[in-house]
């Protein structure tokens, strides 16, 4: 004599190896995704938020892509030198002339060619003419 439970279990005992395999596969899947076993209970609002976000996934992906494009464009823009900054870097002609004179003076000092320096030195035309008269 058997109880119905015993009868059922006996009839399906042959399925146990398959059930063992199935269980091991499921456990292996759980081990790979431990987040599934969260201790926290998913409340209804959280679930609905998840559903909402899921339904908007393509919109959110599009917006993210747009923001990325904007970011990339901004980075490129900042890397290129601005025209204002470029202008500021170019020295004025006066500065160039002053630097050139200073450079020449130093060269002459180093070579000791003081006499020649006087001739070579650029003077106003009126001073040059007075010097020629005196000579």
């Amino acid at each position, binding site marked *: 004599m058997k*109880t*119905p439970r015993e009868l059922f279990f006996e009839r399906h005992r042959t*399925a146990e190896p398959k*059930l063992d395999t199935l269980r091991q596969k*499921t456990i292996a899947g*759980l081990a790979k995704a431990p987040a*599934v076993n969260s201790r926290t209970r998913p409340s209804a609002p959280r679930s609905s938020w998840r559903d909402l976000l899921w339904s908007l996934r393509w919109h959110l992906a599009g917006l993210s892509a747009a923001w990325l494009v904007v970011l990339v464009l901004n980075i490129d823009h900042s890397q290129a030198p601005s025209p204002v900054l470029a202008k500021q870097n170019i020295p004025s002609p006066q500065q160039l002339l002053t630097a050139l004179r200073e450079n020449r003076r130093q060269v002459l000092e180093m070579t000791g060619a003081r006499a020649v320096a006087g001739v070579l030195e650029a003077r106003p035309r009126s001073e040059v003419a007075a010097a020629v008269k005196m000579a």
Partner: protein
Amino acid sequence: MLVVAEREQLPVAQARAGDTAAWDTLFHRYQLPLYVYVFELVHDEQTSLDIVQESFINAARHIGSLREDAKFGSWLFGIAHQKCIQRWRKQARDEALREELAAAPPDFEDDPAEFLIRAEQEAEFMKLLNQLPPAQRSVLLLHFVEEFSLEEIAGITGAQLGTVKSRLHYAKKALRNILET
């Protein structure tokens, strides 16, 4: 007397915390009863295995929605039951499941051991069980396989308590007729 899930010390709390060994213990405990229940409803081995696996995965995924750890067994069977119904709906065979018995629920002895089946009656018992409407069969299986209480069976199947009582009464009556012959 059978030891049912609610009286056992099952590692539900550990499983809730993500302990895979605890899940293994739980699945091992319920794999055969769950398979028996599902198979006797859907009568297809592969479908039954699929439903058992899906039920395990869903249980692991939604363990947070289980309010009382002691109710793990009936909760797991409830998941499997819903999956069976989904299969039936897919196959457009839910008419029989929807049948409701109008008769007032009579009182009955709530003792699964009242049915003792002789070897020569086994085939007849299984044949009769398969002839029962799915709703009655479901209630009877839950009663026999896991000794779930009427309230638990109502929770698992989503039926009214009175409906569960009625279904179980008529299913048992039909079986008793066979076993007494």
